[in-house]
């Protein structure tokens, strides 16, 4: 099993086996390189732990534990968890500021305790069948066990082709579950108990916990201090730490915080695209000049994206609807080649501080929906998605049609996300008849509604949208397919100052109009840190990170596939073999891709979604056994 995930931890490997319990660990050595070997035990060997991640406040926790009489034999954060558990039991996680997935065997209690960090930075999967309980950081390690069946979960496919991710604990594989973010679990005497230890709560606005909007200046100063401290903690490592610099404001802020408030010499890394629609190198270089970092770039072509997509899917372990994880996979390779194991990024800021266009879209649509006959209000629609070529220059009547507001939508808890989800749902037209039959009568919205926190309907509407983005897409896609999985493919650990839980809690209590003031996104963040970044980066229109989609797979000018494997996987035979998609329907899409040089968003998502689902079936259902025996991982 552990051999399947050695890419995550190539520096060291260890196992602990006693009676019916086995723990294994592949180590990426970052803190206490010499004595941090795992599995690690306490002094009397009654507790054993395997741990992936970092406890950033481990020095402070260690001091407190030493004051309580605990003695340490290493300098590692791993040992801090052991003693923290001895002191507080399962509540130990409340004291931890970090990103973690760990399993701790308590031999006295004969209990296995597992936990995952609050926001879901680190992955943790498990399966429980009969007398067997297996867990791992990646599903492929669980699949290496001979008693585990490898099957797709059709309901999960329904979710991916709605939300772009599955709703935890479901994964794309039947009977393989993920421990949701902010949850711990215990396994004792064959009984599995999962419990939430932290709730992402955007309901603070309007309660006694809310922050006073009139204290804008103080709040900006408080946010700045929190960000400085979150960044400082995330530089703790016994190896050099680098940073991603996308050209956007968030990664520039993180880089600026390192430069301005620490002594750390910094190397930054970025992706450059040939296609000007996606390329942000001019802003990256401005930030580099301004912050004077040592900078490395990797140029990513359309052919690179097509070529490396299968490798990326081996790591994401789920279908994706966008190709954006591929360049990040190449970027982590560059980082590793330069001798770095740790990078800071600006991930999480758009969700927490209110930066995404989907929030702006919802705000404008709701404003318009309140006075649907207004002729002035829909003019704001022109402010949306300026980077989308297809929308630029559309008439106001067409914009009104695209962003229309149905009265019943205004009452939906999913108002902000319905346009995206309905667009994605249209991709199910490509599902096979058998799959459609399987899903008939099922409403995935009901599943999601059942998961919403108590009181959600009374939350501020802006905060509702933030919650949906932060609780689902962030861990289910951004931090996994676009984060941990493509970084750890090359043994690189991402760290995210904006996802320090103190900042998340602070942002959740902020009034919405300090996150997006009228239509100015990330208003308070810009106020708090705007002086640290170049004016041009601060003022530039928001552009989300994207990569070429269908054009990386099809050469429409010559009516050919760019990659032979793609032609094979969307052939009628391959589609029939896995039975997920309807061959005739997919044929028409493929013909269109081979003909049209510029495809719409929906068609691009469809072809990437179909191809990556086929790749999942090929790599994990059909060809997996060969990979295990070949040791190709």
């Amino acid at each position, binding site marked *: 099993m552990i051999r399947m995930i050695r890419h995550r931890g190539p520096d060291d490997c260890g196992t602990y086996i006693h009676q019916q319990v086995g723990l294994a660990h592949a180590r990426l050595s970052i803190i206490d390189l010499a004595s941090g070997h795992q599995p690690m035990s306490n002094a009397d060997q009654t507790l054993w732990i395997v741990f992936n991640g970092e406890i950033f406040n481990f020095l402070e926790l260690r001091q407190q534990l030493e004051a309580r009489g605990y003695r340490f034999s290493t300098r590692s954060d791993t040992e801090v968890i052991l003693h923290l558990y001895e002191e507080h039991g399962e509540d130990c996680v409340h004291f931890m500021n970090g990103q973690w997935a760990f399993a701790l065997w308590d031999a006295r209690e004969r209990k296995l305790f597992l936990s995952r960090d609050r926001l879901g930075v680190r992955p943790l999967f498990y399966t429980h069948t009969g007398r067997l309980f297996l867990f791992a950081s990646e599903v492929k390690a669980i699949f290496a066990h001979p008693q585990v069946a490898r099957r797709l979960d059709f309901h999960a496919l329904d979710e991916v082709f709605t939300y772009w991710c599955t709703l935890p604990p479901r994964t794309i594989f039947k009977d393989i579950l993920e421990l949701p973010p902010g949850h711990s679990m215990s396994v004792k005497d064959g009984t599995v108990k999962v419990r939430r230890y932290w709730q992402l709560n955007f309901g603070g606005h309007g309660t006694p916990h809310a922050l006073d909007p009139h204290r804008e200046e103080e709040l900006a100063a408080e946010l700045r201090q929190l960000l400085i401290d979150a960044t400082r903690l995330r530089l703790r490592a016994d190896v050099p730490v680098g940073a991603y610099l996308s050209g956007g404001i968030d990664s520039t802020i993180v880089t600026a915080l390192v430069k301005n408030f620490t002594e750390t010499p910094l190397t930054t890394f970025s992706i450059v695209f040939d296609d000007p629609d996606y390329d942000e190198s001019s802003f990256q270089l401005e930030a580099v000049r301004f912050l004077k970092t040592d900078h490395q770039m990797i140029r990513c072509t359309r052919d690179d994206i097509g070529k490396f997509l299968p490798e990326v899917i081996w790591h994401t372990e789920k279908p994706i609807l966008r190709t954006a994880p591929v360049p990040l996979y190449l970027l982590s390779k560059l980082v590793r080649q330069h001798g770095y194991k740790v990078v800071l990024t600006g991930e999480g800021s758009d969700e927490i501080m209110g930066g995404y266009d989907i929030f702006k879209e919802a705000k404008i649509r709701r404003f318009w929906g309140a006075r649907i006959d207004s002729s002035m209000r829909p003019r704001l629609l022109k402010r949306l998605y300026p980077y*989308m*070529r*297809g*929308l630029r*220059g*559309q*008439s106001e*009547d*067409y914009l009104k*049609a*695209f962003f*229309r507001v149905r009265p019943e939508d205004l009452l939906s808890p999913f108002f902000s996300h319905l346009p995206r989800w*309905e*667009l994605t749902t*249209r991709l199910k*037209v*490509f599902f096979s008849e058998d799959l459609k039959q399987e899903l008939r009568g099922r409403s995935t919205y009901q599943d999601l509604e059942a998961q919403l926190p108590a009181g959600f309907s009374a939350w501020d509407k802006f905060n509702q949208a933030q919650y949906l983005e932060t609780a689902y897409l962030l861990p289910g896609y951004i931090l996994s397919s676009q984060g941990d999985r493509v970084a750890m493919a090359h043994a690189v650990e991402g760290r995210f100052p904006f996802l320090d839980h103190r900042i998340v809690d602070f942002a959740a209590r902020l009034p919405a109009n300090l996150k997006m003031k009228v239509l100015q996104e990330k208003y308070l963040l810009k106020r708090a840190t705007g002086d640290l970044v170049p004016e041009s980066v601060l003022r530039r229109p928001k552009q989300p990170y994207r990569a070429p989609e269908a054009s990386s797979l099809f050469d429409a000018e010559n009516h050919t596939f760019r990659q032979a494997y793609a032609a094979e996987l969307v052939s009628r035979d391959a589609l029939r073999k896995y039975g997920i998609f309807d061959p*005739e*329907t*997919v044929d*028409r*899409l493929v013909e*269109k891709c081979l003909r*049209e040089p*510029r*495809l*719409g*968003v*929906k*068609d691009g998502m469809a072809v990437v979604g179909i191809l990556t689902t086929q790749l999942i079936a090929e790599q994990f259902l059909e060809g997996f056994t060969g990979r295990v025996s070949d040791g190709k991982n």
Partner: protein
Amino acid sequence: MEKIEHRLRKFVIDNFLFGEPNGSLSDDDSFVEKGIIDSTGILELVAFLEKHFQIRVEDEELTPDNLDSVNKVAAYIRRKAGLAQG
């Protein structure tokens, strides 16, 4: 001569619905409201009209009133071509 509506319906079904059964598209269905055509799709539709009906679609004519259903597009083509029947 094949009726304009038939040619339009075939184009929309092949190109945007990827062969979804005929019954799923009525001649009055709004392309945008039913999620059939997005902003890029409008440009594809215009390219199709210009090529197959020998008309030129002016920028100011790019409106849902002209282009948002089979019947609306057919009426628009007839107006442009000055034809009473397809």
